[in-house]
């Protein structure tokens, strides 16, 4: 579960703050390096969490996004793994396979070296599972949308009718036959 430890700090720094993984009282915790937030995991050990935190970013790297959004994907996977022993096993084996691939622990490889290992594992259930989870989880996180300029749900604001649906002023003005005016 994610706990916001310092709400103002979280809001100010979510986009940029790095995360660290630690073990506290026997459980794995992903926490913001500045202490703004922390997540407690229940299925993954610290080594697995560290790998997944880097892997999810390697899959869909956005420099504008802080670690918290990737950590939330890991947290969601952790929750599913807790409920699904087969998934937990897939992840455990996959993380071990990453480390086995070159004989050097995957996290110790250079960024390019990490990608080569991932590329070679592209068809594995482990890779596909983590990729699918990240693709859905990361881009479905409403908190990342403003970084992409996506505004999402609009019905509660009366749609975009009065909120810029025709504001691309750099385009040609269509004639009224092609694009009649909106209702008054």
């Amino acid at each position, binding site marked *: 579960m994610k706990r916001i430890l310092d709400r103002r700090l979280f809001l100010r720094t979510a986009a940029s703050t790095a995360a660290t993984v630690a073990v506290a009282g026997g459980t794995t915790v992903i926490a913001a390096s500045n202490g703004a937030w922390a997540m407690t995991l229940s299925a993954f050990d610290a080594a697995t969490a560290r790998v997944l935190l880097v892997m999810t970013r390697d899959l*869909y790297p956005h420099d504008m996004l802080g670690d918290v959004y990737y950590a939330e994907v890991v947290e969601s996977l952790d929750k599913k793994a807790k409920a699904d022993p087969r998934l937990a096993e897939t992840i455990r084996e996959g993380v071990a396979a990453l480390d086995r691939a070159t004989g050097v622990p995957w996290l110790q490889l250079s960024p390019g070296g990490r990608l080569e290992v991932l590329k070679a594992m592209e068809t594995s259930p482990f890779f596909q599972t983590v990729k699918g989870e990240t693709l859905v989880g990361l*881009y479905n996180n409403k908190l990342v949308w403003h970084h992409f300029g996506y505004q999402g749900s*609009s019905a509660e604001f009366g749609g975009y009718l009065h909120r810029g*649906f*025709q504001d691309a002023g750099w385009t040609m003005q269509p004639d009224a036959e092609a*694009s009649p005016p909106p209702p008054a």
Partner: protein
Amino acid sequence: MARFELGDDSVVVVIGSGAGGGTLANELCQKGIKVVLLEAGKRESPETFVNDEWAAFVQTAWLDKRTTSGSWRVARDFPNLPAWICKTVGGSTVHWAGASLRFQEHEFKTRSVYGDIAGATLLDWPIGLADLEPYYARAEAKMGVTRTNGIPGLPGNNNFRVMYTGAKRLGYKTVHTGRMAINSRARDGRSHCLQIGFCFQGCKSAAKWSTLYTEIPAAEATGKLDLRSECQALQIQHDASGKITGVLYADKDGRQHVQKARVVCVACNSIESPRLLLNSASSKYPDGLANSSGQVGRNYMRHTTGSVYATFDRPVHMFRGTTMAGIIQDEAGHDPKRGFAGGYELETLSLGLPFMAAFLDPGAWGREFTRKLEGYAHMAGMWIVGEDMPQASNRVTLHPTEKDRFGLPIPNVHFDDHPNDIAMRAHAYRQGAAVYRAAGAREIHEVPPYPSTHNLGTNRMSARPQDGVCNSFGQTWDHKNLFISDGSQFTTGAAENPTLTIVALAIRQAEYLADQMAKNAI
């Protein structure tokens, strides 16, 4: 709302409540005919719809497992999701974008006009445009299609403005905000469009026509409709003479019932409709019902689709406003000089960030992909909708081993592009890119076809019984009280979005059915 007895064999059972089934049910009820409408999905409403792509997908999409085969990329990227269609009251009229175009005259006569194209099972429709025109007019009035019946077009959103800019610079002539079954002005007790931008997720303003809040309540008001939601048809039953007698279905608790019927109409979309006929095989009909021609499940069409997205220097915010209110029609005709038969429409399309991530380049990951996605707010998008060639081997079949929760074989959807499809798509990608380059695009993205939204042809109508499954009224050749009432009866696919034609055919079928019942012919 009416409740009819299971043993009441005077009712018409309509299976599926979408564009075909929902319209047919209402048309019959308006004529005083009792209808039991079976719908596998739940009943939602504009209040329960959500402006959230994944949540809405889970709420309304048909997610029962299907398998795929063939060389189409959908089989690789979405092996268990050949189609993005709905299981909900209103069917895929909840999800559709609203584009409502009449077919062109030659598109009813493709075998005659296009000639014998190798590998294609082209066939002329048993009816022509003139036969459908009065029904198109009634469908347009019913649905409130813009640019018909004095209804103004929708105001163009940013995505349309970009399309318009490029199209005009390129010299295209027929470019406007489309003929859309979306209210540009309040009409029929429903709001005007609020430019919400979530047309695919169920329209929360009800400005977009859907049988859910038009045809179905109108039918309920007659006291002649017994709508049974969360009831999935499993088998159509017949007697020793081949006459259809009723439908076996499972209710929401899994309990099975048989509803007796005077007539059964199948409107489950082009994957489930043939599946139901095939799953209704008996000792008398070992190849399934209505299948003496062997055509049930064959000639599966999905339109030659694809999308072109482009990234611009300036913001577009394509997600703001009506998803598909923008069209270029200059390529819709049949002009073999382009190197293919048939034509295509170019229509605006946008996806929210979550679905853009899933569909922009399915399977892709890494920095090249995320760089493209970071241009999201500066992207414009269009969808290609072109006529694809029917092929006997493009086909819905029953899976040899996998069964659903009722123990019935699940469907497999096999599809290979015909060379004509590939040539058309290549042309459309080039033209779409040219439009956007003319508008100043700095990067073009050719996006492969999504899971099919236009599923057609798997119970096609024909002039002769050996060529198809039903006649021009959707009446099956083999069982005179069994009808096909959805897009699976299309002989060929045409270049236009199919819903308006499905609705027109349903209105026409209702007239025929009522007449045949009155004459005691069925």
